[in-house]
């Protein structure tokens, strides 16, 4: 049914309206025929397509507003905010330790990095980053181990969903198959597959469970067999290269102007990696290389991610070796005014409190009970000031600007999420290209909307 604008003939799915810019058709689906018939000769063909926020290829709830000329994108805009949950505001109403529980949910593919950057900021405010009364070595090694495992799982999802969006479903299935292995390791070590809240100010919340190192070693051995599959499947695949090469071009100057970091920046050939240039958590003591590519395009970013998984595997291997020598070492700062008073013990039902600790505070020491109560309900106070300790997340520079007023809760915690900054490059990467390439360009940025919207 061609809509003429009169009320009785109005098409439910393709209404028109006259605006000061001329006749505007609003199309919501399945009626392209009526629209093309309805377009009169004098109508200027200018199509604005709304893509998302529920479109499966927009990486979550990203809304794209594309202006098209034929199949060429002339203007691309992003609409974000659909996943905004007020995490930063909520953190101002919880203790410093509880803050970890909130920020781990931001970039849900890289929970350990969210925790780590926040915790490093808090530790800087507390003045316990390193040294003898600082975060113990084993906690640092465990953080590095978990972050690098997390980098592998995050890059796997980036490659898997990126493959799915261009129709390479096998890449998706094998990507998620391997990610599952990493999540199993997370479950073994932290008890949870996502949203771990495992890295705490002062260290980590639990010691490595028995048998974890064996599992990690067998994972490394398996990944060494399976990672080459991605290279075999994609690296020289003519369809894959045809879709990715030259798409989403952004050079070094563009990256710096728009604030892009991570694999996008390294795909321009610039070896900027905070783990090397501004090391934290002891990264300077690990042997690994910064991976770059020099094509500035989506294919380069794919290759950088693939190569970075190998590097992460190297770091995981070294961290596992160190942990083997650190059995029984402390995982939490020695200061009892910061360290959580108890360790969880696993009961017959698979979870539970430490019975020893309960006996101690309930039956043996009134002071221990008071201390437990104060630390758990009130939390510790953090000296006033501000800190910003950025880390290299799988997507780039992730930093937490934490401000304390001397209280028991964060006065302000702001996260500079790399997805948020990187997504600004959408217009630059997509405009002038084809509609289908928009998907590839965005997939190469690898935005996670939980991190963008926070």
């Amino acid at each position: 049914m061609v809509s003429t604008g009169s009320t009785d003939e109005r098409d439910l799915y393709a209404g028109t309206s006259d605006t000061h810019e001329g006749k505007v058709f609003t199309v919501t689906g399945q009626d392209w025929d009526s629209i093309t018939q309805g377009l009169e000769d004098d109508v200027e063909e200018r199509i604005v397509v709304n893509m998302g926020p529920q479109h499966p290829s927009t990486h979550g709830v990203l809304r794209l507003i594309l202006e098209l000329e034929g199949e060429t994108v002339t203007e691309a805009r992003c609409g974000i905010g659909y996943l905004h949950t007020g995490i930063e505001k909520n953190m101002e109403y919880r203790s410093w330790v509880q803050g970890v529980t909130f920020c781990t949910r931001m970039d849900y593919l890289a929970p350990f990095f969210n925790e780590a950057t926040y915790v490093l900021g808090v530790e800087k405010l507390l003045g316990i980053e390193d040294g003898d009364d600082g975060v113990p070595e084993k906690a640092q090694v465990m953080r590095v181990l978990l972050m690098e495992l997390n980098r592998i799982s995050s890059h796997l999802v980036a490659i898997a969903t990126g493959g799915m969006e261009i129709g390479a479903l096998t890449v998706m299935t094998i990507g998620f198959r391997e990610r599952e292995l990493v999540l199993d390791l997370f479950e073994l070590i932290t008890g949870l597959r996502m949203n771990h809240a495992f890295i705490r100010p002062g260290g980590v919340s639990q010691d490595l469970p028995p048998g974890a190192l064996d599992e990690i070693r067998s994972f490394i051995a398996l990944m060494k067999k399976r990672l080459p599959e991605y290279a075999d499947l994609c690296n020289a695949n003519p369809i894959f290269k045809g879709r990715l090469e030259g798409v989403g071009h952004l050079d070094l100057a563009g990256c710096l102007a728009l604030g892009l970091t991570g694999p996008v920046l390294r795909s321009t050939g610039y070896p900027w990696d905070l783990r090397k240039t501004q090391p934290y958590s002891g990264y300077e003591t690990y042997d690994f290389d910064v991976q770059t590519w020099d094509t500035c395009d989506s294919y380069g970013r794919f290759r950088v991610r693939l190569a970075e998984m190998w590097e992460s595997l190297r770091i995981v291997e070294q961290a596992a070796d160190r942990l083997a020598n650190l059995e029984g070492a402390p995982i939490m700062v020695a200061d009892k005014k910061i360290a959580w008073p108890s360790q969880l013990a696993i009961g017959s039902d698979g979870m539970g409190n430490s019975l020893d600790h309960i006996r101690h505070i309930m039956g043996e020491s009134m002071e221990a009970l008071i201390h437990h109560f104060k630390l758990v309900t009130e939390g510790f106070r953090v000296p006033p000031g501000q800190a910003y300790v950025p880390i290299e997340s799988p997507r780039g520079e992730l930093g937490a600007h934490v401000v304390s007023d001397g209280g028991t809760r964060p006065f302000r915690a702001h996260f500079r999420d790399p997805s948020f900054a990187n997504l600004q490059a959408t217009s630059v990467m997509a405009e002038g290209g084809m509609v289908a390439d928009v998907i590839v360009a965005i997939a190469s940025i690898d935005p996670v909307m939980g991190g963008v919207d926070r």
Partner: protein
Amino acid sequence: MSPDNTQDPSNDPKLPARTGGVESIGVRRGMFGVSGSGDTSGYGGLVKQTVFPSAGQRPYGGWFDEVADALEARLRSTDLVAAVEKVVIDRGEITFHVRRDDLPFVAQMFRDDEALRFELCSGVSGVHYPGDAGRELHAVYHLLSMTYNRRVRLEVSVADADPHIPSIVSIYPTNDWHERETYDMFGIVFDGHPALTRILMPDDWPGHPQRKDYPLGGIPVEYKGGTIPPPDQRRSYS
């Protein structure tokens, strides 16, 4: 082309933890967050000064002096020495408090000066200090120099009644979304921004949610006959 790895900015032992004293930016009252809760312990009457690190003294130490010297030399040549209100050194980080009107000029210099070369801006973060009279709203910019592998922080403070700060999107285009977010959450108006609209909250949202006077919201939760008030109305330590 490869970045200089010899200077680690954060853990450099040559950099001082702090030079200078402290200054008050407000007070914290009470012990338990809420007032009028029938607290008879006496702790509800506590008044504590919130003290932040104040202006540091020369020499700042390490590369802090190089950056400050380069900045001062340029400012003197343009007769704008007062553009930097104070320099705070705290926890191995350097913060330049910049006068509002001079922010674009200072930012441009930080980006372009050969001795500074801060190529990347990590965005702007707003902070609301209701107790800091006349300077309630702070905009905090983190700049990164990849050439020299250094980080500095710029801080601009404005009054709640006049929340205008010049935009630096023309200097650091990455700040486009960051400034929109800070406007959305704090109501700081970035003059000269190409399209300063809300970004995370809906367009017609009233108020600016991350200001301290904006309530967290939430509803009381009932469980087994008891009622727990929303987090911002609970009795909690402050």
